[in-house]
């Protein structure tokens, strides 16, 4: 176990790459040397690592359309572990890497399984440890949805040496760096008989509070076509923020489903969950639905860390998609006729935070004229982007059905946006919506079901919401790409 070296690299589309930070762990390297004997390949100096890494990632020499080293069709699993070809016949493996934007984080775990051939990745614990550390460092450097540029990154990079002294002083990852200090003041834990969890930096003092939020996300691919089945799926996350006194306080959150609700599947839990009933884990999305499956209540006893965390996640198979759409395009007399209709399912709360349908049209000249009629809502036509944005606001009309008709000619002089996927009549509507206070699966956390074993009575807040992501309605008169993420 252990990492031999860690690199943090920034680049701009494969150009101007530079190593922003690197850290070698010579004692692990020392072990690597004695473990691999004559087949030992030393980690080259930083200046020699950039080019092989970018080549293997396929982003070097971006101005050349074909580079033999980079574009060879031979299949090698490249992610998450790359094989870097160094000078001569030597190769460096397995270089783990994760990229976000223009930042690449990479490390080289120690291969401590002796093998004639290359051992499988899955036999090396240091691989999953390396991945965990890299992901933790990524969050540390960029924040959870951060941008890789600016002073923030520079100051974070400056903090790295002392952060690494805490979490990986000698090449063995012990923890991931703390992203921020907890918002509420934490006091050091006084000596006592109860052992303090290593993942908890202090004690909470003050009013007890538990906040539980259920967020569900729905994805869908609708084809409006008899020959092709529409697809949709739902996944949910339960995030908690707990401010409770005590070294190891006990909290239990219970998720419940309505009667006849379909069971929660693929449940994954945070490591702070102390125990799990085996029935909670049995339901899986790769199985066929089983009517007799356990359908709650789902109890999660845990001892919370100070910072907000994702208690658990699940998937669910709901019988219908929340919004059913139909999209048809016809090419007539040098213009395109669009008809679209959307229908909100009766079980879905007709109360949106926002709801928008985007109708992009690719691989054509810019729009000339657009004649758009809608039964409801407003349409914003962006001629430069060849995009119609149909804003439906907070509510569907009483009928729960809306429709759009448009005639568009593409008489503009300059070409509009391109997408190699959407040629000919292949086109889609993409929906964006958010519905507060509802979940599709029906999953909810009752305020009274949250149990906190603590001296003071805690304030408990629960919430839920439904979001959509990758919600596509494809033109039924054209070819549509197959997406099989759900069977």
């Amino acid at each position, binding site marked *: *176990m*252990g990492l031999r070296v860690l690199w943090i690299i920034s680049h701009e589309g494969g150009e101007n790459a530079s190593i922003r930070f690197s850290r070698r762990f010579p*004692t692990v390297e020392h072990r690597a040397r004695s*473990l691999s004997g004559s087949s030992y390949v030393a980690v080259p100096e930083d*200046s020699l690592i950039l080019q092989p890494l970018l080549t293997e990632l*396929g982003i070097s020499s*971006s101005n050349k*359309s074909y580079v*033999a080293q980079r574009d060879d*069709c*031979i299949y090698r*699993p490249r992610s*998450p572990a790359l094989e870097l070809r160094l000078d001569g016949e030597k190769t460096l493996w397995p270089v783990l890497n*994760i990229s976000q934007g223009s930042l690449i984080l990479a490390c080289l775990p120690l291969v*401590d*399984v*002796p*093998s004639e051939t290359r051992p*499988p*990745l*899955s*036999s*090396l*614990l240091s691989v*999953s*440890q390396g*991945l*965990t550390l890299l992901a933790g460092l990524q969050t540390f450097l960029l924040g959870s949805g951060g941008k890789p540029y600016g002073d923030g990154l520079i100051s974070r990079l400056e903090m790295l*040496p*002392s952060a690494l002294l*805490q979490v990986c002083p*000698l090449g063995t990852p*012990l*923890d991931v760096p703390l992203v921020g200090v907890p918002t509420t003041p934490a006091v050091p*834990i006084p000596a*006592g008989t109860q052992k*303090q969890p*290593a993942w908890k*930096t*202090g004690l909470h003092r003050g009013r007890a509070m538990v906040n539980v939020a259920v967020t569900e996300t729905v994805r869908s691919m609708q084809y409006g076509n008899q020959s092709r089945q529409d697809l949709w799926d739902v*996944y949910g996350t339960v995030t908690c923020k707990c401010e409770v006194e005590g070294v190891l306080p006990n909290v239990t959150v219970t998720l419940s489903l309505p009667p006849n609700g379909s069971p929660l599947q693929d449940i*994954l*839990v945070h490591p702070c*969950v*102390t*125990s*799990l*009933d*085996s029935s909670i*884990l*049995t339901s*899986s999305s*790769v199985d066929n639905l089983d009517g007799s499956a356990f359908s709650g209540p789902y109890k999660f006893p845990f001892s919370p860390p100070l910072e907000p965390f994702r208690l*658990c996640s699940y998937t669910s198979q709901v019988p219908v998609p929340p919004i059913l759409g139909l999209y048809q395009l016809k090419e007539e007399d040098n213009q395109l006729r669009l008809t679209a209709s959307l229908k909100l399912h009766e079980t879905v709360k007709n109360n949106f935070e926002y709801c928008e349908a985007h109708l992009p049209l690719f691989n054509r000249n810019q729009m000339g004229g657009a004649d758009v009629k809608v039964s409801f809502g407003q349409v914003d036509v962006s001629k430069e982007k060849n995009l119609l944005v149909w804003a439906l606001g907070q509510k569907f009309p009483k009928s729960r059905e809306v429709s759009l008709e448009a005639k568009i000619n593409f008489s503009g002089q300059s070409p509009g946006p391109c997408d*190699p*996927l959407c*040629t000919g009549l292949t086109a889609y509507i993409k929906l964006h919506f958010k519905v507060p206070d509802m979940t599709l699966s029906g999953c909810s956390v009752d305020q009274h079901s949250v149990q906190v074993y603590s001296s003071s009575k805690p304030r408990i807040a629960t919430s839920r919401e439904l979001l959509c992501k990758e919600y596509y309605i494809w033109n039924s008169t054209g070819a549509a790409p197959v*997406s099989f*993420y759900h*069977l």
Partner: protein
Amino acid sequence: MAENWYGRMRRFSGGPTRFLSETNVEVFLTELLRELRDDRATFNLKVLLLSPLCEYPDLLCSSDSVGQETALDLMSVFAQCPRKSTQFRSHLLVALTCVLICTSCVRSRSHVALDFLDLLFQVAQDVSDVHNDDTSRSLRATACDCLQEMETCCPGLLSQRLELLSGLRQQETSRLHQVYAGLQTVVLKNAVYQLTQEPGAGAEHLKCLLGGNTSFAWEVDQDAFQTDSKDSAMLSSLIQGSMGMMPTLHTGPDCKELRSVLSSLLEESYLFTPLCQAALLHRLTEVVAMVPGIPPTIFRAQLLRLLGTSEVCLFHATLLMKCAFTDSLFSAEDETFLLKRLLVLSQHPLLSIPEKLFYMDCILHFPENRPISCSDSDEALPVLLTPQLASTLLPTVFNDSATMLARLHLQSLVYLEEGVEESRGLVYLYDHLTSMLNIVESGGSREIVVTFFRAAFLFLLYFSQVHSYCLDLSEQLCRLYLRHTRLAPHLINLANQTQERLPECTWAIGLLRGLQKGITKALLGQLSLQDLSWHLKVLTRVAEEREICQHCSLGFLSSVITTSPLGVGGDWRLGNSFLAVCRRVLLHPTLDSLLIPLADILQHLACYYGDADIQDHARLYYTLLTTVSQEKLAMMLAQEAADNGPQVKKRTLSSLMAENEGLTGALTVHQTETAVLCLTLVSSEGPGESGQLHEKETEDVTDVLEAYRSQFGEPGFMPDVTLKYQLVHKQDQDPRFEQLFNIRLHFVLTDDHYEQLQDINVPCVFKGRPPPVVQLRLKPRQPYPTTLRVSAIFTTQDGFSWHTPLPDVHVAFQQSFLPVPTPPSWSGEARLQLFERLWEEISSETGDCAVSLFCCQLQEAELNVLGNQRSMYICG
């Protein structure tokens, strides 16, 4: 000074070996250690100064003794450092650990290493070290990390301290108990392993190990560590997939002590960070696997928590546990559950792509309870993985490249097992390939293009026997190529790789035949220069195939060069592409039947192509074709075809070379990194020359001054300073520069005191032979000292051209002295007379004379030289 150190550290980390090669390592290390002891330096700087020792201890400490001295120095810095600067002290401990381990001081149990161990134990047990700032780990934690690393690198080092460590862990209630537990576990695992290697060791020994024996005598077990092979075996993981190699310790069922230690560690494991938990579980798995007296069910209480975890390292540790214990811990249901979990995790929307791909790799190496195949590295699907289950991982066009290819790979294995005949899955995979092809056709990005060709290769690799699909793929690729000729290198690469990986399969030939057909039927009128050059690249590759008839390729070539305006344009690169096809055809086994069309083409190129070089080559090929037998031709050309490596071709064959990277390399002038040659002065023979003149007393001159002056009226008369230099190799050169040919020296003036110099040609310079002498003719405008910049272009034996700088040539003041330019026939007396007349005239300062004074500083030696050069010289 501090600024200076920041700069030096930056340069060091930019390239340590280069930095150290430019300085004296010992001096650098001494300065570093001195600065660390300096009270004026800030702790921030000191932490930075430790980084070379933390990262490159073996570069700085070249020997054990240097390592020991450095460690002693660092320990004294540690002792003098105020307690409150925890950060710096922690870094110091890390640096010490790195130095001692990497210089083998720990392995050889040197005194420094033992002293340091004592220090670490002192710090680790120092409970008074209460940390004020709870967010940073205390020095105690770092000391434990260092101890753990020492134990990991030198297994068994701390096995005598197990009880002490166990006590420390149990007493500790702060977060630090985790580091004690980590340390204890590593020591425990190594100690148990050591016992397994002792013949006859059993329960009693184990008991001794775990309790009581706190002897501080490090030397006791020194003998056990001398063998390297043992050490390296102890460094590696014991869970390796293939069972039966596990060393075991036979204790019988009675190992209460060990069991209680394990239970207590496992109970507390929940309190550890996921990374430490995973490491702990892995080590305990190894311990339990080595001691059959402990049933693996000891882990059962943790399992449910672990099976549901969202942490990749915890789930991985569980899989490794399964690998070690199979059905003694995991039931058939557990196995099914784990596999389904892996399938779910491999496509979970909330996980990152690297994690998902890692899980997919775990499916390909799933630790089955009853594995069928025994090999530990081959990818084999678990028996439980049905096509139905695997269908959740079908590739889609919405996947990123890596995911898409990994899924295609997995599915190919699934359907290969299922039998391809009636497979619905295969239909899906082929449809998927087609939709990717359509995206490429509609102008997908470079990444999509590369991914598509990789996907196509994977498909062929697994399903080359399914002819209907492969045939269709080949047709589609030809169609794609004609729309996007820039894909030529990808197609050629695909053909090459399928031929190499599937030597039995003729698919590549079919593809090339299809491409040839498509190209040769193309309408010439619509052909762009770009298209044509790609076509010629493809046809060159097609011509390599013995089984493909080349008639239509030649027909195409012939019509391009005779009818298309592109064919005679005179583009050198394009001309080379034409020649490349012809060259390949010259090697084709059916050359006899191609003789006439090929000869026509070559003749046409030789006569009409708009580039002389191409004409020459075409003429040569024509001559070869018409005069040399096919066998000889094949031998001449095959040699070149064989060594397509980076080595440039032999000179004799250079004219037969195809345009390729090797040629480009040969045509480029390369730059040497350092000077290869230099000019060294040959000692002057000035006085000797005048001595010779004395013998020729033939002509009598009446008016010497008049005769002397009249010379200047003659055109072309201008005195010049001739300096002789030897052209010699510099020391320690690359062996390829030992023989240099056709050296052309070029001089650049640095001022305007002299006329421009002509280039000088030297035929060759061989190392070990007398160096050639070159004469530099300086025509002075003003006789001042000067410096000349010198460079040279030469050719090496392998045919490469090089440009190299030479050291500057310095022309000293005294070197610009000249004997009075008198006609060679004058006697010495006449010359003396001339001097006197001139001197008189100058002294009288009448007429047109002017005195020019030049002042320069001369060293004593130069002055002596000046003094020794007797009269009869004037400057310039």
